[in-house]
């Protein structure tokens, strides 16, 4: 966990409002787990004030580079999208606990389910699982055709299904529809995406080994401010922090 002004080495648009940025710096040496995130300050000024949590999509230790994929949304990501290679961004990280690779033994099958801008962290995860000898199936959900990205990149690691909510590309519907229709079987499920998707997955597979990556608005990103807590089932006061206990939790560990 360090702070560094990382240098932008590549920056390109992948799809409508979706950008891929590659950063170089010593911070990469600290990056280990797929599913961890970094906290990025896009401006040296007080506006926007806070850092932005963004997941690591690809960690390239050899080149000392990491890649992040983000959606241009509000002021922070809009300013980020304007940055050019050679400029720096102030990065704090890596933060949080990622997806447990141990949960899937060699020879087993993992199902990776991503929704929209929750997809990026699954890329590094897929890579690591395949390296380890785990078979990977990917189900990627998007709103619409224009926002689809990384289909090929995921296909390189295993069977990959794409669904769009409006049916403009791939299967029409949600990721859960695809899993049901295709009767996809798996030993471990890893997912990242909007809360309704995570809830649906948790309910659909109550007896499976399921890991979910959560999002929450953050202050500090390191566990100090109590902005990002979620409840623990069956307790009035127990809690977990998404930033430092998560963002990845085992299904059932916290209340979605």
């Amino acid at each position, binding site marked *: *966990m360090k*702070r560094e002004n990382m240098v932008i080495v590549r920056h390109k648009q992948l799809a409508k409002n979706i950008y891929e940025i590659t950063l170089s710096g010593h911070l990469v040496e600290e990056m280990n787990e797929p599913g961890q995130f970094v906290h990025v*300050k896009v401006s040296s000024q*007080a*506006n*926007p*004030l*806070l*850092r932005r949590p963004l997941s690591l999509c690809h960690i390239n230790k050899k080149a000392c580079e990491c890649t992040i994929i983000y959606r241009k949304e509000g002021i922070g990501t809009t300013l980020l999208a304007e940055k050019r290679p050679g400029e720096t961004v102030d990065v*704090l990280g890596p933060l949080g606990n990622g997806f447990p690779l141990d949960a899937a033994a060699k020879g087993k099958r993992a199902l990776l389910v991503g929704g929209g801008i929750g997809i990026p962290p699954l890329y590094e995860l897929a890579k690591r699982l395949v390296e380890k000898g785990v078979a990977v199936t990917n189900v990627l959900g998007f709103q619409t055709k224009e926002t689809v990205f990384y289909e090929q990149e995921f296909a390189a690691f295993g069977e990959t299904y794409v669904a769009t909510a409006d049916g403009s590309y791939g299967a029409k519907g949600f990721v859960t529809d695809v899993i049901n229709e295709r009767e996809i079987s798996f030993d471990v499920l890893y997912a990242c995406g909007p809360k309704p998707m995570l809830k649906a997955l948790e309910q659909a597979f109550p007896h499976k080994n399921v890991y979910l990556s959560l999002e*929450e*608005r*953050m*202050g*500090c*990103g*390191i*566990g*100090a*401010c*109590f*902005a*990002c*807590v*979620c*409840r623990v089932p069956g307790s*009035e*006061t127990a*809690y977990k922090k998404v930033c*430092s206990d998560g963002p990845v939790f085992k299904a059932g560990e916290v209340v979605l």
Partner: protein
Amino acid sequence: MNRLAVELPGLSLKNPIMPASGCFGFGREYARFYDLSVLGAIMIKATTLEPRFGNPTPRVAETPSGMLNAIGLQNPGLEKVMKEELPWLAQFDVPIIANIAGSTMEEYVEVAKHISQAPNVCALELNISCPNVKKGGIAFGTVPEIAAELTKLVKEVSEVPVYVKLSPNVTNIVEMAKAIEAAGADGLTMINTLLGMRIDVKTAKPILANQTGGLSGPAIKPIAIRMIYEVSQAVSLPIIGMGGIQSAEDVIEFFYAGASAVAIGTANFIDPFVCPNIIAELPTLLDKLGIGHISECTGRSWKKGERSVYCGA
């Protein structure tokens, strides 16, 4: 001579820089970045009698040069703070200021009595921005008589000096400060957050689950400066200033306004190293300003006949 050392009731500080309550937890997270012993003091997260979960999420929202928070005083409760957090903090050579909160006067008193006995707690900070459940939810910190009564009760039981943290959400901050001084407080800390709100243009709903929240960060700095400027001229209590501090220059501005030490809140989230960095930068800035000791800065904006000499470019 240590140019940054300051003496306040109950507090011998090696420097006047401390993290503000609620923005530093109980120090564990920041201890991973640097040795907490470099800090002047630490204001720990508000402690209540029982553990509290706080408000539903989202609990933070961003605003121009500021942030809103509605954490809702989440904390592990007095017992756990006494048994786990304070003993853990004792490994560092740094005085602790215990921020305490409650829904009734009795709760404040109870927490004050016990927490002031912890060996490394050198002062209390009463967070009087909380709504008083017995007085129909009116914040303790908005009615001078209530704030004074609370101060008195806590003073009676506390083993250490008591600082009262002023809420800026009042018509007359000087009147509040005077009432609290008369009630026997040892110092003031100011300012707490301003009540604010943000609405999501997409959903038409407030972004915070709690709807309103406390505004902190650089946006509120001019309000903090004005209030410290007014209060420091009206009372003789020392003031620990806070509200939007981000740099060594900001620290000097707070001193000029009338502060004798400062706390840094939101800026920790932006740069976890902000406190040690500012501590390191202050001597150079004092040189540039031609000032020997930082305490000479206190109140310089209103003290007659004193002017700092700027030797910079």
